[in-house]
């Protein structure tokens, strides 16, 4: 126990409430980053050997040579369907294969033919087919330019930072740093490379240490790097996960943004340090176009961003403009990875939504979650025992607050042995689960990937006997310290390991589990308390690869195997729900993520917005932050504000550290209880809208929680907004995130738009900064004029209890007095929607007629839900309202019902009473 205690204390005592930066590497402390960053822009030593060019129907290949060391690389260029270009660079003849990331792309991306437009000794021009898009391959120095007409959209290696550390034999086999004497022998024996610049053996190439940890680096240096220039671009986004603003900052005066999945204890805000997950996707945007760069590499990666306009004041920019002396704004980015190959997908947009669909075509879309998982989640480390669970569950009913999931953290297990239950505290888990099921509620129990080394533990014995553990550099099972003490780490990169893991979730294997028990994967960076940077040693071994190569993928594989387990246990019928902390490109396919161990501080509440927006941009829609803050204890004001914010974010879960006082919603006095109850109930009224948006995210890859610029791509005022956000395109949310706020100023986007306050129905024009006075009950949320949002106003104990309840349609008219929306209904929990068992209707209002038409006539589903009310915002008073329903539309003598209505002239709101048609049928309603 001593070592774990020491590590734990070291972790805990390091700085009271801030990350201990010394536990994590800076670029200078990561030898490849230091080495690569030392290279400055200049003429590239690489030359394209045009004579080696081969063009087939699907790809172009040609060799590149580094004139300094004569090492040859192979460039592969693909034109992909959907306006994308793929650039792959690998060594022509590597000493041994280099890692190419598997399992992230949903398929080998389909290609389209490339054609040569022109060619001479200086280069080749290829057509990308679309419009006037071309790729120019320049031979010396080697660079790639993607152009459209006369505009350069993106240049690769234009700054000459392409660097490819080729694999080599170790020259200093005695591990002596001075091996210069052998240099001669080496060069002599490589006849071809007599002029080769002497390869300097730098410190850190063959071994490096960080704190007390040594990385044996048996393969030596293997880093890759490439620069991208983005003319006309001043705004870049993405590359989560960082606790930073939505708009990425330039990194000239500090470290690059780092992508290396790490369990960072008490992370700091507004800096480029690595966090739990990594998605190497960057979006670049200006008023003309959105483009994207997907750098498919799972090793430790650093991203440098610089800009020629960074640091210029608005006045300076204006002066440039007036004087006409302005150089085109340009952003330059540079990617550096420790190993693997260069495999880049250049997504050419041109719209943000094109980027989402392009990226989705590569890595897939957000999994369509069960409806219940969009409800409220009550979590804490830890609910102590079954009685505790029962009483918290009862508390929700007593205070008439809905919730769908209660969560159990690590203490529920028998000694941190996952898949088991503490025999005293959770002696009869099925009784507990049945109790929840009787209320149509669910539970999540944690299953982490570190496995207690204990010969009395079935899971451990099986993994060990099947050889499924990650190995250390010496070939033994890799072991590290985590919650259970000494633990092994299953090698989730192995398909048979994943299959076995998935099988552990079957009801007969996972004792005490039931169909309303779901799973949470924490610590899957992986977190190793006594490892370098609290993670696994890079020279640990996964089959034929080093941990170095696969690190950022580990969490994705854990998530995937768990999700597959939940699907399989139901025979492929039920949709899974799995929350993960670590993630990579493609993790959206497996479930939800959260922003890890945040703190009960106002700034952490604020940062939840850009953190989830950034994830949304790269396909991961199901995102949330711990409501209330994990570490520390929130003031009641902060807690209420956090509920109000979290209720309008995709994954809505309250969570708290073991050492904090209890904070169930009713523990802060009747006033705060009422405030929290109100906002959770608001969430439930919007569940039909959330569900429909997730269906869309599943279909298209469009984010559910959206940055404003995604919907208003031509309005630069939206480009850096990250204190408010859109849900879909129809709800605008500006949460109150300031302590003691008396008001907030929300930006209402869109010159043509009008926005309706969802609480007061007051109408506001778009393209303005609106000051909104607030009280503790205020949550500034606006519905876009021109939209129709279906809601269920009968809030019940849980989402499942509301299944058959009727809808209220909120029709917000725009200036043209039209509106449209959708209604999506299915069973809420199975994959049957994939077999066309759903209702998908388009609702539209124009010429004073509101209609519902079927947009999926081939689909079949029936619902008991009906339309109980239609609320039209921005309406004028009709003389009468009539309804024609189902089937009868076709018959000449269709009976026409007159409907009752109320009109509130003060806010121009028309409420149509009880039209009562079934939500799945065709109908039409006329205001006359």
């Amino acid at each position, binding site marked *: 126990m001593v070592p774990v205690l020491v590590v734990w204390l070291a972790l805990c005592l390091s700085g009271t409430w801030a990350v201990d930066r010394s536990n994590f590497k800076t670029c200078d402390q990561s030898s490849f980053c230091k080495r690569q960053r030392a290279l400055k822009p200049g003429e590239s030593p690489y030359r394209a050997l045009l004579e080696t060019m081969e063009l087939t129907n699907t790809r172009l290949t040609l060799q590149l040579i580094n004139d300094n060391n004569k090492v040859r690389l192979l460039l592969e260029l693909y034109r992909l369907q959907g306006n994308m270009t793929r650039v792959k660079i690998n060594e022509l003849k590597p000493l041994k294969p280099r890692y190419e990331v598997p399992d992230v792309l949903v398929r080998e991306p389909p290609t389209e033919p490339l054609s040569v437009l022109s060619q001479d000794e200086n280069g080749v021009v290829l057509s990308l087919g679309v419009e006037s898009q071309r790729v120019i391959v320049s031979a010396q120095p080697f660079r790639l330019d993607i152009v459209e007409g006369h505009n350069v959209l993106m240049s690769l290696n234009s700054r000459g930072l392409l660097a490819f550390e080729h694999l080599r034999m170790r020259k200093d086999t005695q591990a002596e740093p001075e091996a210069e004497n052998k240099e001669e022998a080496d060069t002599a024996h490589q006849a071809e490379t007599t002029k080769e610049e002497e390869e300097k053996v730098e410190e850190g190439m063959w071994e490096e240490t960080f704190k007390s940890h040594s990385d044996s680096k048996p393969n030596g240096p293997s880093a890759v790097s490439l620069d991208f220039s983005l003319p006309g671009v001043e705004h870049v986004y993405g590359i989560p996960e960082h606790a930073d603003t939505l708009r990425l900052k330039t990194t000239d005066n500090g470290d690059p943004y780092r992508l290396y999945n790490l369990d960072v204890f008490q992370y700091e805000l507004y800096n480029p340090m690595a966090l739990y997950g990594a998605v190497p996707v960057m979006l670049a945007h200006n008023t003309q176009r959105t483009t994207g760069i997907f750098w498919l590499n799972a090793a430790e990666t650093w991203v440098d961003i610089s800009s020629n306009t960074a640091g210029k004041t608005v006045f300076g920019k204006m002066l440039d403009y007036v004087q006409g002396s302005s150089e085109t704004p340009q952003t330059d980015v540079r990617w550096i990875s420790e190993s693997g190959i260069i495999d880049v997908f250049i997504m050419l947009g041109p719209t943000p939504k094109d980027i989402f669909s392009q990226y989705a075509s590569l890595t897939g879309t957000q999994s369509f979650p069960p409806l219940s998982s969009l409800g409220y989640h009550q979590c804490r480390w830890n609910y102590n025992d079954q009685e*505790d669970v029962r009483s918290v569950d009862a508390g929700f009913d007593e205070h*008439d607050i809905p919730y769908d999931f209660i969560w159990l953290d690590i203490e529920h297990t028998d000694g941190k042995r996952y898949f088991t239950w503490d025999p005293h505290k959770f002696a009869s888990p099925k009784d507990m689960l049945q109790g929840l099921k009787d209320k*149509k509620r669910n539970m999540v129990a944690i299953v982490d990937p570190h496995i207690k080394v204990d010969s009395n533990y079935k899971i451990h014995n099986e993994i060990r006997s099947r050889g499924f553990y990650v190995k250390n550099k010496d070939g033994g099972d890799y072991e590290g310290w985590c919650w259970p003490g000494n633990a092994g780490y299953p090698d989730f990169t192995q398909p048979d390991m994943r299959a076995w893991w998935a099988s552990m979730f079957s009801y007969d294997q996972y004792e005490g589990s039931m169909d309303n028990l779901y799973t949470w994967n924490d610590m899957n960076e992986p977190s190793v308390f006594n490892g370098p940077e609290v993670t696994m040693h890079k020279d640990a071994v996964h089959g034929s690869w080093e941990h170095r190569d696969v690190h950022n993928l580990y969490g994705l594989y854990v998530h995937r195997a768990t999700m597959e387990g939940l699907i399989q246990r139901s025979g492929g019928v039920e949709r899974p729900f799995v929350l993960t902390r670590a993630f990579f490109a493609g993790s959206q396919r497996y479930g939800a993520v959260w922003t890890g161990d945040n703190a009960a501080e106002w700034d952490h509440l604020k940062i939840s917005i850009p953190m989830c927006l950034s994830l949304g941009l790269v396909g991961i829609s199901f995102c949330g932050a711990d409501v209330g803050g994990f570490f520390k204890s929130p003031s009641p004001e902060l807690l209420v504000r956090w509920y109000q914010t979290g209720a309008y974010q995709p994954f809505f879960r309250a969570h708290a550290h073991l*050492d904090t006082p209890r904070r169930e919603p009713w523990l802060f006095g009747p006033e705060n209880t009422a405030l929290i109850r109100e906002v959770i109930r608001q969430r439930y009224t919007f569940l039909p809208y959330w569900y429909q948006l997730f269906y869309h995210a599943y279909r298209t890859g469009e984010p559910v929680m959206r940055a404003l610029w995604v919907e208003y791509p031509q309005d630069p005022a939206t480009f850096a907004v990250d204190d408010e956000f859109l849900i879909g395109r129809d709800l605008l949310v500006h949460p109150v995130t300031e302590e003691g706020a008396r008001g907030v100023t929300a930006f209402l986007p869109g010159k043509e738009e009008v926005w309706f306050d969802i609480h007061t129905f007051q109408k506001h024009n778009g393209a303005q900064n609106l000051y909104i006075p607030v009280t503790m009950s205020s949550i500034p949320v606006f519905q876009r004029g021109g939209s129709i949002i279906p809601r269920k106003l*009968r809030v019940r104990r849980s989402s499942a209890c509301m299944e058959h309840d009727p809808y209220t349609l909120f029709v917000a008219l725009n200036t043209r007095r039209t509106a449209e929306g959708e209604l999506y209904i299915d069973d809420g929990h199975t994959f049957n929607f994939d077999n066309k068992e759903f209702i998908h209707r388009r609702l539209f209002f124009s010429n004073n007629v509101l209609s519902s038409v079927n947009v999926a006539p081939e689909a079949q589903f029936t619902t008991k839900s009906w339309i*109980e*009310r239609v609320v039209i915002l921005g309406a004028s008073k009709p003389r009468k309202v009539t309804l024609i329903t189902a089937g009868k539309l076709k018959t000449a003598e269709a009976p026409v*019902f007159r409907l009752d209505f109320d009109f509130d002239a003060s806010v121009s709101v028309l409420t149509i*009473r009880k039209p009562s048609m079934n939500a799945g049928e065709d109908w039409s309603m006329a205001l006359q």
Partner: protein
Amino acid sequence: MFWYLLLLWGGISAVEVQRPRGVPLSKRPFYEENKPFTCLDGSRTIPFDRINDDYCDCQDGSDEPGTAACPNGNFHCTNAGFRPTFIPSSHVNDGICDCCDATDEYNSGAECQNTCRELWRKEKESMQKLAEIAKEGFLLKQQLIQEAKRGLEEKQTKLGEVQNSKKDLETNVEALRTAKEAAEQPEKEAKERHLKAWEEQNAAIRMEKDKVRMAEVFIELDADGDGFVSVAELLSHSEMDPDSSDGSFTEAEAQELLGGVDKVNTAAFETIWSKIREKYVSESNTDGPAPVETPQEEVREPVSDNDSEPYPDDDIPEEEDEDEDEDEDEDMDDGDYKSPPVTRTDEKKDDSEEGAMPPYDQETQNLIDAAQKARNEFEEAERALREVDDQIRNLEKEISFDFGPSSEFAYLYSQCYELTTGEYVYRLCPFNRVSQKPKYGGSETNLGTWGKWAGPEGNVYSVMKYEQGTGCWQGPNRSTTVKLTCGKETVVTSTSEPSRCEYLMEFTSPAVCQEAPDLEVSDIHEEL
């Protein structure tokens, strides 16, 4: 219209009173059949057929008592055979059985059983049990109150007694103090006399010894035995160089030492003896294995407390001071009563040949013994007075302690109750502290010391709060809330830690029992 729900007339028992679903009997007059209905908040009036038509017309939800249409409505479960109750409208037809008469799930497909009679039976049983406990407990409580009352009286009596005895004790202490002081004066004088005599005697001895030594030294110095110590003879003793720092002992210096003459005889030597006494190193010592032998250079170093040489180093005297302070402290501590007193250790060291102070003469010793006796008696009396003070303080504390309205909790005072769980032994010592000790070894943790009664208003004595226990890492000090419930026995029934370092203990005691309520619980009805 299809979704229009017919009004269903409530009640399942034989005696039916017709009223809209979900309306309690008391509100029936507001729902008059076929007459326009005014929302109970008076906000509007609607046709009667809009009551329970599954659409919310009234802001207060009063038009939909029997459906889930209004977000803020309530549904009345008649629960014939059990206790009627209201449930939130959101629980109507949500597929979960809430009313024991199953009336809330009339259109959800949920298969609810009427469990009212069963519930009533169970509740009756448990109420009876509780009532029995309460009854017996209440009797016990009366005894406790009587005992407490008696205890209180006893304590008050005791307090009175003790307070009286305190007065005597105080007088006694004063008398003994005077006696002690009276006995100490002659003791002090006698001891001083004794000491003085001894010191005088010592001085005489020292002088005699010095003379002897002087003669010895003279003979040693007078190397040629001519009866004179000459400059030359003196020069052979370089240690006597008055300014030793220059390292040379000159003739002039030697002459000066001899008082300006070339040689001195025995008589004249007497006048210079005092100048050389301290420096002189006997020849027999210089090469003999004398225990005090030190190289000449180091002789200067302070070797004993009362070395007359000035200290060359600033630091040492400081240390010395401290040492002396300590010495003095010790002297004060143990000097008084020791007989015979031990002289200061340094003196003793220096004058070891002189030996210890001789015992007191009988007269002095008698005085000392008498004074010691007076001191002992005085202290004894003082101690007794302190004890009485403590006793009074404790009694007053106990008497003034809030042991409940009738002191019924007094019996818990200075008791402890334990509960053993899987890992720990919990110990509650009411009005004192709560602690936790690992079952299998390990030290005890304080979970809080007595803070206050902390029950809700009107029932303050139902909860005890123990605060300021051992601190938690990065957290609050441990604290414990003790919930008291009526029971015949006084036992800790459970402990838990709902929040880190905030403990909850359940404790039963007859002292919490209330007068047993009349059985046949009033709000349970068998029939409408």
